[in-house]
């Protein structure tokens, strides 16, 4: 085999390896989804969604966990979105190129990489014990808000920086103030991307388990919460609880609950795409 031939072989082999790795990733995703689906699908029923958890697998359901998760995500959105978007507006539109700005930006990137269990410890000390909120929904939502805040800030910043400068200059040229420019020009045109990023951040929050275990969310809750101060459980915690039990039926119930969780995530992602389309059309129509 001459050198030329050897080089050609190496080239082909490399292409095959790269393709194989990519396919591996896709196959793993398919395998994971199939396995969960096969195990859980037959346990999925309307009763499963409308019943409270039970010691008996055939009667167990995720009503309290489902509504707990919905409460949690709405509260988290109400707390984290205004704060995160405001912070991003400051950093992108107002902040001077100073040392403090740089520190804030580096810090936000680092906070996004802090393990979620550490946020759980923070929530336990700060909200559950410090503010005496107990093991309540609001303590959980505040903890998750701190967790998703850096992600919301980063994605909103990217959305704002994608708005062309000509828009800002035109607005200033017409005599608009800084805030008027942001309020009436920049925010509306960045809105589709801000929404997408925020929904993705919130879908991270809905799957979080460790921080909620840290703040002591209960696993056996046979009621749906009525106020933010009520104790709660959430879907990931319920899944964790079921999968930790020795009876094999509970493993299947856990798979059924995972299907529900993944469907909620899918709905949120679809909502993000639809909202983005709608806003984009509106903008183009103007």
């Amino acid at each position, binding site marked *: 085999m001459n050198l030329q031939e050897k*080089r050609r072989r*190496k*080239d082909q082999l*490399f*292409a095959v390896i*790269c*393709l194989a790795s*990519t396919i*591996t*990733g896709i196959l*793993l995703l398919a395998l*994971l989804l199939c*396995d*969960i689906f096969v195990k859980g699908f037959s346990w999925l029923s309307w009763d499963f969604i409308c019943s409270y958890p039970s010691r008996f697998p055939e009667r167990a359901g995720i009503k309290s966990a489902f509504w707990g998760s919905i409460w949690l995500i709405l509260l988290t959105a109400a707390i984290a979105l205004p*704060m995160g978007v*405001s*912070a991003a507006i*400051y950093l992108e539109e*107002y902040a001077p190129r100073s040392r403090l700005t740089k*520190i*804030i930006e*580096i810090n*936000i*990137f*680092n*906070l996004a*990489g*802090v*393990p*979620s*269990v*550490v*946020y*759980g*410890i923070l929530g*336990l000390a*700060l909200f559950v014990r410090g503010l005496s909120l107990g093991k309540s929904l609001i303590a959980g939502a505040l903890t998750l808000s*701190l967790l998703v*805040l*850096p992600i919301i800030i980063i994605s909103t910043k990217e959305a704002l920086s994608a708005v062309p400068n000509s828009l800002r200059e035109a607005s200033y040229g017409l005599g608009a*103030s*800084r*805030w008027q420019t942001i309020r009436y020009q920049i925010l509306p045109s960045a809105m589709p991307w801000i929404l997408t990023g925020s929904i993705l951040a919130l879908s*991270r929050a*809905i*799957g*979080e388990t*460790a921080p909620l*275990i*840290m703040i*002591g969310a209960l696993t056996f809750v046979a009621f749906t919460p009525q106020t933010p101060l009520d104790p709660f459980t959430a879907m*990931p915690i319920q*899944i*964790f609880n079921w*999968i*930790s039990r020795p009876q094999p039926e509970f*493993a299947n119930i856990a798979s059924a609950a*995972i299907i529900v*969780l993944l469907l909620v995530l899918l709905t949120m*992602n679809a909502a993000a795409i639809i909202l983005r389309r709608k806003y984009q059309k509106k903008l183009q129509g103007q």
Partner: protein
Amino acid sequence: MAVHSYNNIKEKIIERYLFVCALISIFVTISIVLVLLSETVSFFRDVSIIEFLTGTRWAPTYTPSHFGVLPLINGTLLIAIGSSIIALPVGLTSAIYLSEYANEQTRGIVKPVIEMLAGIPTVVYGCFAVLFVTPIIRKLVPETEIFNAASACIVVGIMILPMVSSLSEDAIRSVPHTLREGAYALGATKYEVTTRVVLPSALSGILASFILAISRAIGETMAVTLAAGATPNITLNIFESIQTMTAYIVQVSLGDTPAGSIAYKSIFAIGMVLFLMTFGMNLISQWIRSRYQEVYE
């Protein structure tokens, strides 16, 4: 005139409010450090720091109790290394495929699919490990324990794979085309162009993505809690049950540990070690990216 000054005040107030929101991130970091530090200090009043850092037994509930953190660090590093062995090569080569080989259409479909792996909650990976991966490993290697590090390594590897492939791909794509074309003009094959020209130029971004992924593996909690067990153990045998730092923190908070007890304080000390490790790695990753990034005109 009155309207004008009213508007001015309004503008000032809004700017102040936005600034305060931006400062919150700093407060979060400071409160993480303060919360961890205060309980950690009180933990080290009961346990000597030397014993904590050099002890080889972690047995907080035994009498006499032992608080050597090395078994937990061993568990954490075993998972981090094991999952990296899977995720780093696979992630990098699929990044190369997406950036150098795939056409735009394929890339547009494949990239979001791989990123979906990152959107799946970690507790789902934990279930997958327990219900699917562990039974297969036990069939292949019969002496494997029910809870074992191997299964956790595999699912954590899958979990951090999209992070490696996505961030590495960004780095590889940002290498300018002129560089590739120059190499092709000299008669190089695609393999040679990729490994000798493109990858060295993208090295800083690739390294940064590796470090971020390892840091993610170190902080991973639910999958290792479910799959790897709760046996603090100094071992390199991936078929044994181990315990990571994160799994220990979860174990303590699942039991009803009274505030102020030494077990309660120990999760803050472990949390501190975890925070310092991951925060440090994230800083290093950023530093590599900004320091060694090659700038092209």
